[in-house]
């Protein structure tokens, strides 16, 4: 086997070997080569050390409200798009009497501000309430999978 270190084009063989991506036969050939090649052995040792070091670098956890923030932005964008389309349509129809166009804009605003859900609930309040429900669901899932109150639970049972 041609030494992979000496031929840069084949150096990926060594990388794939360290990442355990090679097939069994190629692995066997390469390991036999390494028995007699200090440079490749050194590469392997160095790459393994690097791999372990990179493995230790686990990213910070994702914020619990990431999805909620994203959905809120999507929602805001789609609302902004609706208003913009309505305004663009109204302004594109120069033949429409101004009063009629104004009524259309007002109607659109009315629809947006008065959802069919609960008449006195503002969209912001519904979102906040739903967020509270979601947070409760997060906590329930956490407690279902990881009983972090086991000791407290046990001591309260024996009381």
């Amino acid at each position, binding site marked *: 086997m041609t030494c992979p270190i000496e031929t*840069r*084009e084949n*150096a*990926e063989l060594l*990388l794939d070997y360290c*990442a355990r991506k090679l097939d069994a036969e190629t692995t066997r050939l390469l390991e036999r080569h390494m028995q007699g090649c200090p440079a490749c052995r050194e590469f392997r*040792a*160095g*790459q393994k*050390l*690097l*791999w372990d*070091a*990179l493995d*230790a*670098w686990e*990213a*910070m956890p*994702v*914020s619990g409200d*990431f*999805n909620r*923030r*994203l959905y809120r*932005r*999507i929602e805001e*964008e789609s609302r902004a798009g609706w208003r913009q389309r309505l305004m663009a349509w109204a302004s594109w129809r120069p033949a429409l009497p101004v009063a009629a166009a104004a009524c259309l804009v007002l109607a659109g605003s009315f629809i947006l501000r008065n959802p069919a859900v609960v008449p006195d609930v503002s969209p912001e309040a519904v979102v906040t309430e739903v967020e509270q429900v979601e947070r409760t669901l997060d906590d329930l899932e956490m407690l279902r999978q990881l009983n972090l109150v086991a000791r407290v639970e046990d001591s309260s049972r024996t009381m």
Partner: protein
Amino acid sequence: MGAAVALEYDAELMLRVKEGDGASFAVLLDKYRGPVIHFLYRMVQNRSIAEELAQEVFLRVYRSRATYEPAAKFTTWLFRIATHLALNWLRDGRHEKGQEQLDANAGPLPMREVADRRPTIEHALLYQAKLEEVRQAVAALPDKQRAAVLMHKYEEMEYSQIARVLNCSESAVKSLLFRAYETLRGRLAHMA
């Protein structure tokens, strides 16, 4: 076989999103939120920036749903968007030299008060020191080398896929990786 089926499934999900299926978008978000954020975090090394960029990634995915065509693997497209945003952010922030990119919020891990404190504190301190060295070493890589390493090591992407994300040839990707790993091995060799 399994991987090929999974990749087709992602494209299929995205096609359903194109047809207005919000649940499919939720599935893709749940599946790739972590990998995208982690990739961006390791690129920009700032948690809040990484999440902001990740939000933008998924917003762009959602915005593009009407014109989505599965010309490439879904993850190729997804990471192309993520890489593009990360490289832009890094380039735009280049005038601010120094340590700003490193996560100011990382801090030491919280140490728990267990009965025998010494092993826990020592372990945590060593862990922190090692992490810091790894982060510094990766942060010092040129941006494209860094992106290639992160995709190769943490996302286990093939050279061809990384090439499509970075819009370069496969041999260019191999060259990037070889140089990057060589640099990293040199910097972290003392950890042996």
